[in-house]
């Protein structure tokens, strides 16, 4: 029998027809309806599994006049998801049905869609929910109940367990309540609304639903329930099983929450996650003040409408929502060798989010330009992640970029707290480095004084391209055993510095550079390289000397006493800036300035902070190598550090220096965990000590000319007895005097002069000065004057000594790099060698002096040293091991040098104190009969023509150098100036004249004269 839907006298005739046919036993159904029923089944399944879009269309005049009587004011079309073709319509009777003009072709299309879209794992669940919803509150025989029965009958429900990825949305389906033709006034509408839960794709991943561990009852609450308080240990929830509740301890990680050690709580947003945890993700969370709200989709909790919320409360915490991708760099930066890359993709501020840095699998494939991370465990994220970067958008490889940390944390004891993380290579200044709790020295160089950073991040300037390295800390090789003592000697020079150490068990009798010197080029061996790059070995990361540092220099042990300054940060200036010297290299970075001569305070320009910074830098850079060389394995070591200082330091300068050393000790103590004690000895005495047992009974005049001072030690070796010191002192006439003079001669402006000074220093240390200035007339003239003045000063010392002593042999020892300016600015070195040029230069001066029993000395210990500067540091080291003098802490009482010129003080009371040129003045010579006032406020006269006798050929030589005809034309300072300087040099009780007239003349007038035409 044919059944025509339009036989039913009702607007919903098609719907009723489906109902009535479906209510019949299958064998009694009209055959002509088979296709339609099949289509209906497809539509029901597709609707419930979310593969149909529902498009509502409002019914307008005139049709509305006919439908409104039935409570129908719109049509809900059903379309295959993503298409615009109507395949059915929501039905107030049978949920959804084909359109009235349904054909077999429509069935074929629908079947095709169904075959592709069907989800057997879902349909049972959503059908089960739909049936339950249809039945809820309905009497037997109602249309909804009947439809529910049909659904139960027509679909073999089978497994109705909640699928892992259950996620639904309710759609409103109009359902026929009564079969009427006329709307009743005052009675319920003929059409009900039923909200059917259907599957929704898109966010349909597996969802975590907290369940009671005892009874599996869901732990979700109604919206009105009180928030659940959470602390670091998690939180407890009682299930609401009517038969009895159970307490459950839940982990916030399952809720994508990470309670940071600070007062922040990170609530992860699951957007962008590439994999789903075994338990599933919780629903999207919402932060409201201190509350995190979770609302489960009804489908995820078996259609439950009310108890599908959890509100977690974090008291006194700041809640922040973040997407997982926010913690990763947009693009991974691969510094150095690609295949060795082990950086992780975390942005620096999120480095602490990684739970297992040691277990992350990094696969860097240079061929595919791909970096894949496996087993990333993020705090608050319930499963390990895999994260991949590939292609030019995902991976940026910078082979000329290195990343390191100094010193290598694995070589340092646990208490060591000072570390520097840095970038290296030609591209370093295009990038940034960052660690937690570190101070930025330069954007690519940071310093931590709180121990080894757990991670460091390298980024480009945008911060979106980068990599983070996690630093593995090996078990400490340092035992907490008995205290050991270790010894260091430091010659902190004006231009250069040298560090010596004493290996355990060795005495300080004959230290040598090879065994005791600290070679700065080896500092870099203590770098832990996280990414290595090729080239650029001169300076590592703008603060460490490269491995080839000094290899061309005469003395590879030299450490420049120079600093680079950028804003308020300084690092040792190991050489000229590589970028400034090579304009082709990229980068706009420029140091603010280079700092030198900070060993001394200039008038109005205290350099205390720079000295302190330098010494701190020097020691912190040196100690790792010292520890390495010493084979130190005790965390209780004590370092005894001996310093040498110039006698030219006045009392105030010495006190300052002592304070500085104390502060450096304390700084080192806190940053390295070792104990420190500093000792001090003047450079002249150090030099004497360095000679040790050599040449017993011989008299030496050691003139140690460094960068800032020429330190004089005039003594006779005592053998088993202490050496006898005849003169000792320090004048500020040294290498820097020459450099400044030449720079001033060459450049007209102060700025250019400063630049040239650094250029000259660099040229000297790299031995380039002889080629650049070897034939420069000004350089040669100034050098000749410089040498002559220095020798004139030495001649006066010797003459003064001979006034009271026999004509015994005097060995003149020219030590210090200041003397080596002779070959540094000689073009003849190329052909004749530096030693020969040096010897010939000073032999010539010795010949001009023509002093009887005065010889240049080249024997031990000078012979064994790379440069004579080592004498001072050896002396300082010996002091630490032996006498342990702390001269800086003592009242200055050492220096005594000849006055060089006669002068006298005449008091108002008629008392006269005349000092002849050969009389010694200095800290060691107190004027007990006079007060400072009498010496400085009353009359004083100077007799500059009273000088040690000149002998030929020195007199002629000197006059020629001065370019004057006789002695009276030799330039001298104005008397008032000289007087003023003498007055200012008077200090102490009793008063001491710490500088004689000749020293003042040399340091001032003659220094100025060096460049006079």
């Amino acid at each position: 029998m044919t059944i025509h839907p339009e036989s039913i006298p009702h607007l919903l005739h098609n719907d009723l027809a489906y109902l009535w046919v479906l209510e019949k036993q299958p064998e009694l159904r009209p055959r002509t309806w088979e296709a339609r029923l099949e289509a209906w089944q497809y539509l029901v399944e597709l609707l419930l599994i979310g593969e149909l879009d529902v498009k509502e269309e409002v019914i307008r005049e005139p049709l509305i006049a006919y439908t409104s009587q039935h409570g129908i004011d719109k049509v809900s079309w059903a379309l295959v998801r993503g298409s615009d073709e109507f395949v059915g319509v929501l039905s107030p009777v049978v949920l959804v049905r084909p359109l009235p003009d349904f054909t077999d072709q429509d069935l074929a299309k629908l079947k095709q869609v169904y075959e592709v879209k069907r989800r057997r794992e879902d349909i049972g669940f959503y059908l089960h929910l739909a049936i339950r919803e249809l039945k809820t509150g309905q009497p037997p025989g109602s249309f909804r109940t009947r439809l529910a029965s049909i659904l139960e009958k027509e679909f073999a429900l089978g497994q109705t367990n909640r699928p892992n990825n259950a996620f639904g949305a309710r759609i409103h389906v109009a359902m026929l309540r009564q079969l009427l033709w006329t709307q009743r006034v005052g009675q319920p509408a003929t059409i009900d609304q039923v909200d059917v839960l259907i599957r929704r794709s898109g966010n349909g991943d597996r969802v975590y639903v907290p369940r009671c561990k005892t009874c599996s009852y869901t732990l979700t609450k109604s919206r009105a329930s009180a928030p659940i308080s959470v602390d670091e240990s998690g939180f407890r929830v009682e299930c609401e099983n009517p038969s009895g509740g159970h307490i459950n301890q839940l982990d916030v990680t399952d809720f994508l929450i990470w309670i940071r050690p600070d007062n922040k709580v990170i609530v992860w947003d699951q957007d962008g996650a590439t994999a789903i945890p075994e338990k599933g993700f919780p629903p999207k969370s919402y932060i409201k003040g201190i509350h995190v709200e979770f609302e489960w989709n009804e489908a995820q909790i078996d259609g439950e409408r009310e108890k599908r919320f959890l509100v977690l409360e974090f008291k006194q915490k700041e809640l922040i929502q973040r997407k997982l991708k926010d913690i990763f760099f947009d693009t991974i930066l691969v510094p150095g060798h690609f295949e060795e890359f082990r950086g992780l993709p975390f942005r620096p501020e999120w480095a602490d989010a990684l739970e297992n840095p040691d277990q992350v699998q990094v696969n860097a494939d240079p061929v595919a330009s791909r970096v894949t991370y496996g087993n990333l465990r993020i705090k608050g994220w319930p499963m390990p992640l895999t994260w991949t970067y590939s292609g030019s958008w995902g991976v940026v490889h910078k082979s000329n970029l290195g990343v390191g940390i100094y010193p290598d944390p694995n070589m340092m004891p646990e208490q060591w707290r000072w570390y520097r993380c840095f970038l290296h290579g030609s591209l370093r200044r295009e990038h940034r480095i960052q660690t937690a709790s570190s101070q930025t020295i330069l954007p690519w160089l940071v310093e931590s004084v709180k121990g080894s950073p757990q991670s460091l991040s390298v980024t480009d300037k945008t911060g979106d391209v980068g990599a983070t390295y996690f630093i593995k800390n090996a078990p400490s090789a340092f035992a907490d055993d008995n205290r050991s003592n270790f010894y260091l000697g430091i010659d902190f020079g004006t231009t250069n510095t040298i560090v010596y150490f004493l290996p355990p068990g060795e005495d300080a009798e004959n230290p040598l550079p090879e065994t005791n010197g600290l070679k700065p080029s080896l500092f870099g061996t203590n770098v832990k390289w996280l990414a290595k790059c090729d080239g650029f070995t001169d300076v590592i990361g703008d603060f460490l000397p490269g491995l080839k540092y000094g290899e061309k220099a005469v003395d590879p042990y030299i450490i420049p006493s120079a600093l680079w300054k950028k804003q308020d940060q300084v690092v040792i200036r190991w050489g000229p800036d590589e970028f400034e010297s090579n304009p082709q290299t990229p980068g706009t970075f420029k140091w603010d300035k280079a700092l030198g001569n900070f060993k001394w305070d200039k008038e109005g320009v205290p350099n205390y902070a720079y000295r302190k910074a330098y010494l701190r830098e020097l020691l912190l850079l040196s100690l790792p190598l010292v520890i390495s060389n010493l084979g130190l394995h005790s965390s209780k070591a004590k370092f005894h550090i001996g310093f040498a200082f110039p006698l030219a330091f006045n009392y105030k300068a010495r006190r300052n220096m002592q304070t500085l050393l104390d502060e450096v000790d304390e700084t080192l103590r806190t940053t390295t965990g070792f104990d420190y004690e500093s000792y001090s000895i003047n450079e002249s005495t150090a030099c004497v000590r360095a000679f040790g047992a050599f040449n017993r009974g011989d008299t030496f005049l050691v003139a140690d000319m460094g960068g800032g001072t020429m330190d004089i030690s005039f003594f006779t070796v005592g053998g088993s007895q202490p050496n006898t010191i005849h003169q000792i002192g320090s004048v500020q006439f040294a290498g820097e005097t020459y450099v400044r003079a030449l720079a001033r001669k060459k450049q007209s402006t102060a700025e250019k002069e400063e630049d040239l000074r650094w250029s000259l220093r660099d040229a000297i240390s790299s031995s380039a000065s002889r080629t650049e200035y070897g034939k420069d007339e000004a350089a040669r003239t100034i050098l000749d004057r410089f040498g002559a003045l220095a020798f004139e000063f030495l001649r006066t010392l010797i003459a003064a000594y001979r006034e009271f002593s026999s004509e015994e042999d005097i060995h003149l020892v020219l030590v210090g790099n200041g003397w080596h300016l002779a070959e540094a600015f000689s073009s003849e070195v190329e052909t004749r060698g530096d030693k020969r040029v040096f010897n010939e230069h000073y032999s010539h001066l010795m010949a001009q002096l023509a002093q009887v029993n005065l010889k240049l000395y080249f024997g031990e210990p000078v012979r064994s040293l790379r440069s004579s500067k080592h004498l001072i540091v050896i002396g300082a080291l010996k002091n630490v091991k032996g006498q342990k003098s702390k001269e800086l802490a003592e009242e200055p009482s050492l220096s005594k040098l000849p006055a060089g010129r006669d002068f006298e003080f005449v008091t108002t009371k008629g008392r006269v104190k005349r000092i002849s040129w050969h009389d010694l003045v200095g800290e060691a010579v107190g004027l007990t009969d006079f007060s400072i006032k009498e010496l400085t406020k009353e009359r004083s006269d100077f007799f500059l023509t009273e000088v040690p006798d000149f002998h030929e050929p020195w007199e002629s030589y000197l006059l020629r150098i001065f370019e004057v005809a006789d002695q009276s034309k030799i330039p001298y300072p104005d008397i008032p100036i000289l007087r003023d300087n003498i007055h200012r040099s008077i200090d102490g009780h009793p008063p001491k004249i710490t500088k004689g007239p000749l020293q003042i003349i040399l340091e001032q007038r003659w220094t100025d004269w060096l460049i006079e035409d």
Partner: protein
Amino acid sequence: MTDKIITVGGTGQMVLHYYLQLYLLGLITEEADLVVIDSDDILPSIRTMRSFFGELQYGGQTNESLGKLRIPRISPLHVRPSGGDTALEVLTGRKHWKRTDTHPVYAFFNDDSLRQELKQGLFARPALSSVLTQDIFQNQALRPEPNSTVIIVGAVTGGTGGGLTAPMLDAVQVFIQRERIENVKIRAVFFGEYFRPQEGLIKDAIPRFQSNQTLVLRSFGDADAAESLHSYFIVGGPGPNLDFERKTETEKGGRNITWPNNESNPFWQGVLALEHLLRDTATEKAMKFEDREVQNLSTYFSLRGAELRLRKSLSMVRMLNKKKAISRLCKDPWAKWIWGEGPVEIASHYWSIAAAREGGKEAVTDFPKELQRAFERLWRGEDKDLGLGDVFPNITQAERMRPGKMAAIRWPRVSEGKWARELFDDKKRAARRAAAILIFWTLREAA
């Protein structure tokens, strides 16, 4: 209380056609209001009888005749939808609609139904008629009276009957509930497949009628209002009655339609069912819907008896006409003794009404002639309009009737009731109403 008969569609009209004849012949005496619902025109016979009943009105109420007799009121409800020639046009407001475009109407109806030409009926599609005609559902004609019986008559196989039978049941129920009308019994006479469809009129008529029959009856199973259906009788079905053929053209002509040949005639069965359901006041309403079907009808008259009554009544009227008896009722001083006091008194009463309306007796001296003329016109009709005599079948065998039969009629008394002035504009109107009364009572009781 006045019962109500609601006929739906052509079948309903045909049942009413016979039912009213039997009423006029006095075989059916129940007072009832009649509602005729159809998409087609009302049958001429029913229209004629409705007009005739109108002439019977005497008092202020439309069904108040002389002597306070309640005469049937026939309310035709024409359900042809307006607003277009096709269902599509009516429902969308547009003559044409591209099938490729969507319109909500296509969620409810198939294209074939929507493109039906409405002027030719609803083509056996109950769904269309139930939707397109719903504006009549609240028509006051459907309102039942307390303590009354409402009977719905219609064929569930047809477009109109199938489409509106259930909605009518629902509509009556709405009145009952809304106005709290008490003690109304709703009954129905359903016509299933009771005739052999005419070839070519409706495509696939038999399966479609079968479908209609099945699904319309099935709709009663779900309709809320079905609960209020007290009892019903089903004429015909299941399966087509190949022995009975409807002659729709004849039906629509309406002139002298023959009576059934036998008692099993579906229309006759329908009339009998109507009479049964109207008279049955004792049967309790069954709980189950299917148990409410009346299986056996009580017969209050037989077809043969009715035919005899028909011949006698018609013969009497013919005789009155032939003898110009009506005019003589006024003029003949012996008329009382020949025709009895009743008809003379009635004629005299209406003459005096005419005089009153025309300004005095002098103005209505020709009233007897007017009365005779009106009598003839009512019976024989004017121009193309049927006369009441045309409603009945032609009788080939006249009965011999004596004038004394007229005296035996229980004529209504003119002292009862009060004539409504507006019904009597002039002497002609008075004459027509007087003639109608005379014909009515003659047909009803002269046999």
